[in-house]
């Protein structure tokens, strides 16, 4: 799971992720994310390790000489805190890691490793795990794993670059922001018209639908994929919680003997709750075609996120409100084990104990305690 900041990191882990990837203030591909200070990296690593989980650091920018100059100190720090792996795409960065640490190296999808010959090249460079390009099918991934003997990680959910990862420089030349060092301006999400007919409605012909591989988890397993990966360090706590919860429960379902189609449908339905474009299986089974392009409907669907529990005492629980809530609204909460609970707002109060008809974003409300609720449980709209 992605961890855009320490808060989302803890949420993702609490909701079931086995590992979370994070970035420091440099060297990643999301300069706009909060990212982690050194102290937070230490805290995150301790938090994860205490729960038997892992933390990966993204160093997957294509670095310039001046970036490499400061990387060594950061690598020494990462080794000291016990980071579990570094996700890298640049051969220079790889060299700095190898010269200064024993940190295992995962190849970033940014390097567009698409075939077994390429996998063997990266194996010879000392990589232990490949995050394959999103253009690779599950059947191809199986061959790559067999041929290389490396661990394979594949994306299962989230936004996708339309271009081969690492091969897009639109932002560089139009906005002066290096997309391969964290400055992507998402030009592929803009509407475009063609010059011969400027009167037409713009088409979102470069905007990919979002990946959803939930229904193909069995095929991931059959292909021998070692780790499934979710995109989204810029996404919010609701996404971190719900997607982490859904996929961790799905993996448990996969290992269970008796499962019903209804259980899988319920999980798929939950994924409809988070903001997303249209979903696609992209190239997981066959090459992504026209149906994988958003084209006319670029907006992420309405978010149902209402807020998050930020404290619980003997009688009350406190919720940070992120979207407007009316007293007559009905909400759902999700326990860390994925079970849902119903939540009524009829007795919501501000912190001066006054009852309110509408709770506004960026305020905190008091609610009667629901048994089992914990800090960082996520609340969303039932409608």
């Amino acid at each position, binding site marked *: 799971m992605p961890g855009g900041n320490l808060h989302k990191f803890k949420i993702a882990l609490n909701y079931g992720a086995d590992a979370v990837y994070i970035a420091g203030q440099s060297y990643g591909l999301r300069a*706009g*994310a*909060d990212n982690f*200070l050194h102290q937070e990296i230490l805290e995150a690593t301790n938090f994860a390790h205490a729960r038997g989980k892992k933390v990966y650091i993204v160093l997957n920018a294509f*670095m310039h*000489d001046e970036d*490499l100059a400061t990387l060594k100190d950061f690598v020494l720090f990462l080794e000291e805190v016990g980071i579990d792996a570094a996700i890298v*795409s*640049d*051969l*220079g960065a790889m*060299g700095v890691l190898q010269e200064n640490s024993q940190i295992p190296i995962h190849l970033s999808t940014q*390097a*567009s490793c*698409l*075939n077994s*010959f*390429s*996998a063997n*090249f*990266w194996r010879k460079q000392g990589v232990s795990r490949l995050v394959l*390009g999103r253009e690779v*099918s599950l059947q*191809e991934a199986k061959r790559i794993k067999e041929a290389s003997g490396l661990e394979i990680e594949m994306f299962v959910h989230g936004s996708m670059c*339309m*271009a*081969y990862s*690492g*091969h897009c*420089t639109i932002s560089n*030349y139009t*906005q*002066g922001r*290096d997309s*391969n060092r*964290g400055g992507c301006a998402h*030009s592929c999400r*803009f509407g*475009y*018209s*063609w*010059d011969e007919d400027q009167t037409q409605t713009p*088409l979102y*012909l470069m905007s990919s639908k979002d990946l959803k591989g939930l229904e193909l988890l069995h095929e991931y397993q059959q292909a021998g994929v070692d780790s499934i990966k979710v995109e989204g360090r810029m996404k919010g706590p609701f996404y971190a919680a719900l997607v982490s919860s859904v996929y961790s429960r799905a993996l448990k379902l996969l290992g269970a003997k008796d499962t019903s189609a209804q259980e899988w449908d319920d999980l798929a339905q939950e994924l409809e709750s988070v903001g997303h474009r249209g979903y696609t299986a992209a190239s997981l089974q066959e*090459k992504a*075609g*026209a149906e*994988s392009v958003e084209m006319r409907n670029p907006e992420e669907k309405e978010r149902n996120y209402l807020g998050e529990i*930020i*404290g*619980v*005492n003997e009688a*009350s629980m*406190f919720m940070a409100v992120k979207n407007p809530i009316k007293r007559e609204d009905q909400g759902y909460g999700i326990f860390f084990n994925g079970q849902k609970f119903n939540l009524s707002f009829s007795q919501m109060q*501000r*912190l*001066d104990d006054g009852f309110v008809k509408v709770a506004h974003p*960026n*305020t*905190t409300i008091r609610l009667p305690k629901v048994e089992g609720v914990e800090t960082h449980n996520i609340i969303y709209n039932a409608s």
Partner: protein
Amino acid sequence: MKITWHALSPLDFSQAAQWGVKDFLLEHQDFSLRGGVDTAACLKIAEKIKSNGGRIVFLWDLLLSENDLHKKLQDFLTLPLELRQVVRVKDWGVLEALLQKAPDSKIQLDLSSAHHNLQAIQRWPSYLKNKLDRLVLSSELPQEKIKNYAAALPVDLEVLALGRLLLFYTPRHLLSPAIDRRQAFISSEEGAHHHFPCEEYPHGTLLFHLKQLCLLSEWPMLKNTGVQYLRFDTRDLPPGGGAFVESFLKNQEQEISWNTLKEKLQVEITQGYFHKNKTDVLFKKLKNWRLLKQEKITRDGKTWRYCGEVVDSLREHSLTFFLQEEIPNQGHYLLLNAAGKEKKITFKKLTYLTSELLQVKWISGVGEKALLYVCEE
């Protein structure tokens, strides 16, 4: 300094060698991004080039997933040997496949993606040794770096001197499903996204910069970088522009103004990042750094430690913090808000709603997300 030419660009082949044109990139339709000719046509072009003293470089710049690569490799191995003596590749899988299956082919590596540091680039000569014929550097590198790299690397280098800048490459077909065309100029209402040439091929879709890269006004500086090869791709110039480039090379022009170039080439041009690349300077504006929780800050010679943030501000009533740690009753505190304002405070009364939620008396001008620091005295 020698010239690499795209074989599909118009040229008087009989004269080219005299102007320094040595290598010709051959773009087969099954292996090259913009390839438009089949094997038979490639052979004809190759014969013409060789008879005029040129050398063929087979351009295999497709990125290929597993199944496609195995199929293409079989096709490649059936090509006449004369076409595949030197091969330029962009996918490290293609590279490895050639090392194993076509060990006699010399390799030119296209490093136009990534590879913006010497340490990364240096790994290739030591990895490929005598198989490596040339490295093609990224157009995002400024001249100073090119010069440094040329001095440090034991292999021939090449940079693009004139031609379209590829911005985007996807295996998906983007134009035909949308507008039933294979070529178009596309524009967005957003900023500088105008008039991008967009082309769809059987293997995917390419998007180019509206301006072509042109470094001819920097000719003396280009020579001074120490690179051995400059690449010219004139196929997207109008006939007059192409003729001008031939004349420029023929006469070995030294000085030419930017305005003259714009007039003669008859297309929009840019020098790209040849003078400097500052594509990371805007990053600091991508987020509000004031809201970044720093472990410790220094003010007035004292150290202040982050301990929580405001989660609720109830006018005239209370301010509520979500605490990261327990705080002292009599401590001195610093509040930083999102607008950058700072306020030093003490609390008379602390009321804990939970172990992490602290309520204090309302403080004017402090809203949600303001950060709380405690003085380390």
